[in-house]
């Protein structure tokens, strides 16, 4: 029987980043992927003839240092250097356009508020500092509070402290204050126009089951801004799946193995120590370490099993809030959809965003949803919020059609040519996110990035450093600190703590 230094469960971007770094260190790694393709959430798939789409994320980039370390450019990864505009749709078709050129964006903002236009460049400057803070925080291994932390964990935290302090006292304070704020309060410090505020605040809701008046959306706004490197998505030439393909290429070139159609059923545990995995076909593969890139709930409650874990740990894992509420609607058109290029949002007012979220709170589907729309040639991709994973009535086997209808009706109000242009369509419900992409409760983040589930409380307090109660078993997915969105931070970090 072949044995490996490390087996990685899941070929999502974090799993692949971890694999590539380990392979680079000369370790014998094996990545096991349940689906027939690598990428996890970072995939470009075909849903029919000429219907190739970025299934879940319209864009994204890995952290630049990761791209450089792993030499991903040589594996065909080309990130668009031109940032497309972020457009907030208005009923009168005089849309608010945040152009990548700050001066142009300010010009568009001016139509809504002179003051907001004047604040745009200082705001961008502040958000750049915010991004530096978020990346620096996500690069740090979080200490295992309240158990106390060792010297290296203390060092990482001290370094983070210094990095934040270097942003300047005033900015440091503003960032720290911004974390527990609501997105509404956060933007209210800079802007007066509800239209401008809602457009910026929508970033704080993207991917999360939280409203604009929800505590901590100040943080999620900063988090998403940092991962996007701005407001609009950065698309990847050839589709976001190229990121995963480039990573897989790097892993293989460095001597790592990747197996698709290889679903891990169980982590093999003997005397509280992981020693390999069992696949769903019964095959057992042994290894020195096991890293799970799957979400913590699935990892601990299914792959490990509650019986192998301390009761209070299990209790905490059961309590992780997943609560997915994102659906995707992809439309293949004849090209005459009329939607402009860029990241296009339906987020007309702060209250609109909050009301859209109310549906999730009451286990429903938003009748007036917050939408984020991107186009790629003839394909229109709609990110739909909110569609609660757990529905009060009806179930996701049939309710997908409702999401599709609401999404199309909402967009058609702005783009009357859209409906007649539709040739084919594909809806991905929260249940599809769970069954197809392995996301428990359809949560893209492997656990909501709420104030009580972030930083040193991610995935649960006391276990924020990728380690688990099972020796030689580590976590590296979005559910650990660094995760949430596409950056590769948690995949990078796990390698630092591996024995």
């Amino acid at each position: 029987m072949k044995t490996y230094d490390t087996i990685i469960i899941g070929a999502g971007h974090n799993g692949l980043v971890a694999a590539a770094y380990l392979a680079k260190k000369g370790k014998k790694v094996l990545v096991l992927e349940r689906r027939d393709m690598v990428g996890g959430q970072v995939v470009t798939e075909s849903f029919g003839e000429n219907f190739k789409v970025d299934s879940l994320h319209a864009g994204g980039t890995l952290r630049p240092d990761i791209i450089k370390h792993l030499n991903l450019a040589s594996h065909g990864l080309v990130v668009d250097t031109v940032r497309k505009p972020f457009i907030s749709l208005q009923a009168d078709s005089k849309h608010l356009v945040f152009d990548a050129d700050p001066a142009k964006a300010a010009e568009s903002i001016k139509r809504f508020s002179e003051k907001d236009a004047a604040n745009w460049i200082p705001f961008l400057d502040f958000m750049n500092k915010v991004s530096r803070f978020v990346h620096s925080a996500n690069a740090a291994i979080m200490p295992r509070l309240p158990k106390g932390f060792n010297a290296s964990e203390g060092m990482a935290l001290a370094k983070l402290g210094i990095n934040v302090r270097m942003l300047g006292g005033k900015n440091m304070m503003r960032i720290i204050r911004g974390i527990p704020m609501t997105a509404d309060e956060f933007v209210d410090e800079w802007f007066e126009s509800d239209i401008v505020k809602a457009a910026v605040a929508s970033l704080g809701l993207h991917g999360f089951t939280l409203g604009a008046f929800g505590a901590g959306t100040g943080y999620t706004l900063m988090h998403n801004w940092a991962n996007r490197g701005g407001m609009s998505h950065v698309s990847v030439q050839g589709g976001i799946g190229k990121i995963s393909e480039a990573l897989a290429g790097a892993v293989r070139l460095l001597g790592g193995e990747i197996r698709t159609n290889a679903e891990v059923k169980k982590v093999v545990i003997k005397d509280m120590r992981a020693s390999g995995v069992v696949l769903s076909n019964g095959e057992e593969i042994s290894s020195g370490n096991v890293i799970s890139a799957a979400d913590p709930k699935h990892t601990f409650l299914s792959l490990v099993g509650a019986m192998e874990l301390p009761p209070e740990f299990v209790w905490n894992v059961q309590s992780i809030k997943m609560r997915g509420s994102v659906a995707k609607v992809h439309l293949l058109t004849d090209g005459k959809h009329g939607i402009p290029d860029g990241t296009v949002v339906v987020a007309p007012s702060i209250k609109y965003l909050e009301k859209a979220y109310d549906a999730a709170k009451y286990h429903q589907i938003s009748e007036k949803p917050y939408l984020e729309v991107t186009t790629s040639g003839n394909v229109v991709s709609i990110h739909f919020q909110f569609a609660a994973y757990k529905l009060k009535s009806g179930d996701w086997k049939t309710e997908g059609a409702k999401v599709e209808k609401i999404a199309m009706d909402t967009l058609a109000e702005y783009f009357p040519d859209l409906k007649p242009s539709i040739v084919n369509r594909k809806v991905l419900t929260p249940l599809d996110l769970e069954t197809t992409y392995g996301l428990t409760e359809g949560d893209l983040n492997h656990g909501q990035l709420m104030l009580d589930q972030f930083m040193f409380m991610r995935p649960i307090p006391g276990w924020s450093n990728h380690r688990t109660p099972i020796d030689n078993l580590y976590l590296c997915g979005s559910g650990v600190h660094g995760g949430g969105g596409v950056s590769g931070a948690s995949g990078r970090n796990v390698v630092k703590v591996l024995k």
Partner: protein
Amino acid sequence: MQQLRNTPFHERTSALCQPQNWRKWAGYYVVGSYEHTIDREYWAIRNSAALIDVTPLMKYMIKGKDAANLLDRVTTRNIHKMSVGQVYYTAWCDDEGKMIDDGTVARLDETTFRLTSAEPNLRWLMMNAVGFDVHISEVSDSVASLSLQGPNSRSVLKRVCESDVEGLKYFRLMKNKLGGVEVTISRTGYTGDLGYEIWMEAKDALKVWDALMEAGQDYGITPVGILALDMTRVEAGLFMLDVDYTSASHAWIEAQKSSPFELGLDWTVALDKPGYFVGRKALEKEKKEGSSWKMVGIEIDWVGMEALYAEVGLPPQVPGTAVRASMPIMVGNVQVGYASTASWSPLLKKYIALAHLEKPYYELGTDVRMEITVEHHRKHAPAKVVKLPFYEPEWKKK
């Protein structure tokens, strides 16, 4: 406001309880003593047959395919080694290896167990049952229990039970019929004497009581309250939750918690069993590194104590019941521990105590001194660390 409840035996016990000496136990009223002094009740346990209402024990039924797996995970013992009809005494710990509670596990059949405990443990059991195919139900109220203790207890049961209890071994149980009702009889108890515990449906409680009282008449059967029981359990070296140790689930500070090793339960910690059980890592570590505390028995030196009383012109005085108080234990001028329960043993004619001593003072034979109050003044009576139990009659396990 929480209302204390009466046990299913209340109709009988209340009629007999002369001093109205009621005690609170796990939400129930139970008799402290049936007479104004407890001597007769104490001697019934040691010389004849004592009938004690122990219904307030918490009781849980654990059933299902994974029942043994769950208990093996929760408790420190190797439950898979248990045969049907066997009873284990066990501790259970939190994941830091600190004791939450202790009690007995009885294997009623291959997939059915009854667990007893001093305090509520349902949530803890449920928390541990995630992923197990098991059904847990609390039967504290629906199952009544009587403890029949003392050298004559077997003879009483032989007279009244449908099936012979002669072959029932120590820490085993059997199904039986008594006073016309179905009961389970286990050879267990809290006195360190020959004794049995009888488990029945609460509705049958009075029938069983009456049958036992009638059958035991010729054997000196005596209803006994928990004050006499408390004295005998000290003689037997058995500790009590909230008196001799604090549950990890409601200790205020770390120092209040105890591990099973610290309470002398080394023999119940099956570190050789496979897989995870709650507290395993911490217990392995403590086993390797040694415990910093140990519960031991101490005997107070009568002559030494006599001298302290003689200083003020008094003869030695000993308490009439077990004393549940913390009494400092010294070596030289340094406090090295404390006694948590002390009792005069009428049978041994000795003043004894359960004491918690720091390393290395817990070694057998160590000379220590225990604080006693002599005519309002703190004094230190010489004492010695001795082996537990203080008293173990040959008929206990025979």
